[in-house]
């Protein structure tokens, strides 16, 4: 078991003929992902990497059962591509593209939420992986070993570091989701925690947050009320000055919102230990799981 994706997940790639799309499609296939088709408007009818390419997601859906779509479409068309997938009935849409205009995301997220039956992950995210079953993202699959810790994160490289450390320590990962570093994203920590709560193969969850916004505070509130499994926290950017954007568009402290103090207090209130280093994340997981 795992959450969101497994070895049976049928995947299409939007933007499969682009440089990024082609490169990562090949890597996903190598990692075991069942890629069944690609979509590039204007290139329908071709075959690439052994799968058919369609002009629209709707056409792909006529010929294939689709569980998920991953999007590598460049920023100007990325939100539109996510809406296309959502309206074609794809239940899981993973938006990798970075640099999407914020208003495009405001509109797309609102519309997708109104549809009600579609989960959007990202944008500007590394995607998700259920190790050794399905990689729906751009992470290096080699550092993820199958295991029992759920991992959710707002960052890319910190996720890989943490996954590697947990894998090397023998715990491994049930499913890992990079939710993305932008201010407006489709899925937040508190959306994913209930899924891990219900997944029998996830024994503990690591939440790698960072400064900016209030996702960590919302997650802590859920954990305090409902979480049945141990959770370990991490907050990146604790030393960052106020008002400066630290790489991620969402990693900025505005006034009193988004401060590390607020996030640490929220985690403390939910009895979630917060690691200061990646090694400490592993130590806290060991303390919880033995």
């Amino acid at each position, binding site marked *: 078991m795992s959450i969101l994706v497994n070895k049976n997940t049928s995947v299409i790639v939007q933007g499969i003929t682009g440089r990024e799309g082609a490169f990562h499609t090949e890597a996903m296939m190598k990692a075991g992902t069942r890629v069944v088709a690609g979509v590039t408007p204007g290139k329908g009818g071709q075959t690439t990497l052994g799968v058919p390419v369609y002009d629209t997601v709707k056409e792909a859906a006529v010929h294939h059962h689709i569980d998920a779509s991953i999007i590598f479409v460049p920023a100007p068309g990325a939100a539109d591509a996510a809406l296309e997938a959502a309206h074609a009935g794809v239940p899981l849409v993973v938006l990798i593209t970075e640099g999407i205009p914020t208003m495009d995301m405001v509109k797309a997220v609102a519309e997708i939420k109104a549809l009600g039956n579609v989960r959007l992950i990202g944008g500007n995210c590394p995607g998700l992986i259920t190790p050794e079953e399905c990689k729906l993202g751009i992470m*290096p699959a080699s550092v993820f070993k199958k295991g029992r810790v759920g991992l959710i994160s707002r960052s890319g490289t910190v996720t890989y570091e943490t996954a590697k450390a947990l894998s090397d320590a023998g715990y491994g990962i049930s499913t890992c989701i990079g939710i993305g570093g932008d201010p407006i994203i489709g899925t937040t920590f508190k959306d994913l925690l209930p899924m891990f709560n219900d997944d029998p193969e996830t024994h503990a969850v690591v939440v790698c947050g960072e400064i900016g916004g209030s996702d960590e505070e919302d997650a802590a509130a859920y954990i305090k009320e409902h979480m049945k499994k141990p959770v370990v926290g991490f907050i990146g950017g604790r030393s960052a000055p106020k008002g400066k954007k630290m790489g991620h568009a969402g990693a900025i402290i505005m006034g009193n919102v988004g401060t590390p103090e607020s996030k640490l207090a929220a985690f403390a209130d939910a009895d979630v230990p917060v690691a200061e280093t990646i090694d400490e994340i592993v130590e806290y997981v060991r303390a919880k799981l033995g």
Partner: protein
Amino acid sequence: MNLHEYQAKDILAKYGIPVPPGKVAFTADEAKQIATEYGDLVVIKAQVHTGGRGKAGGVKLARNPEEAREKAAQILGLNIKGFITKKVLVAKGINIAKEYYAGMILDRVTQRVVLMLSREGGMDIEEVAATKPYALIKYPIDPHTGLRPFEARELVKRAGMEGNLNKLADVLVKLYQAYVGIDASTAEINPLVITDTGEVVAADAKIVLDDNALYRHPDLTPLREFEAEHPLEVEASNYGFSYVKLDGNVGVIGNGAGLVMYTLDLVQRTGGKAANFLDIGGGAKADTVYNALKVVLKDPDVKGVFINIFGGITRADEVAKGVIRAMDEGILTKPVAMRVAGTAEEEAKALLKGRPVYMYPTSVEAAKAIISMTGGAK
């Protein structure tokens, strides 16, 4: 991207929001000329990309053209929080009866643009939010309907704003149209003034544009002022790096915003202070690392460099080659602590043999090493 007040007001005016007549002056004589044209009370306002201009002496009233020249001469060249004033806005004076606040920002919690309204105009709105939260009305706008006149009227009433209801509501509707039209991330009118004759006027304005959407606003792109940003931030962005100048002495280079933030945290936790944030992005080659070192080492505060790379795609030997090139060219003369996890670590070690570059297996060990080499926090 930040806009100046006069640029923001030009945009608001284009969307039909009344602003006081005003023009930009680069010299005191130009200011005098504009004041002569208006023939009345004028306000001289420093045009710099920072707040707190009034407190710093960057906003002054002038009753006649000669006074306008004098006041402009005082303001031009003024250093406001590190920004040198190179131009002033000379705006026609208005007779203020009431000062309100109207602003729009992106709210992550509701995932919408939120309209904020307050009767406490002219104050820093964060201060209002902190000290008098009841005086601030927040309203998330549905992105698919926009802000409609009836909603705007209701909000004006709720905020307890006095003055012409239709004119006030119209400003709010148009402010949202401007916000969406130019892809802003912040648009504020503070103060929104009711004059003694009952006119509604945007007496000051602040607009920040969404950098991600600049590509679809070619008319706004030229408004970017590189001299208003830190010179190293400009140079770094030319290489495609994300760079933030900080106030410590340990140069930091890493891949991925999260990992760089983590590295800064480790430096601080170990007793040091980072001089910068620099993210080289994914799949870096030797040239990328070399260019990153060039940028970081131009900062005279830097006493040593901490390179922290997670190698998913990035190869450690490529990183080493970039470091060696910077040394051979004499750019890199300061100590380096390096931690590169992943592919080709052994090759990197072989390349760096005999050089004053130290590779450590973990970020924590590398942080300790660079702090001891740079002597800790200043």
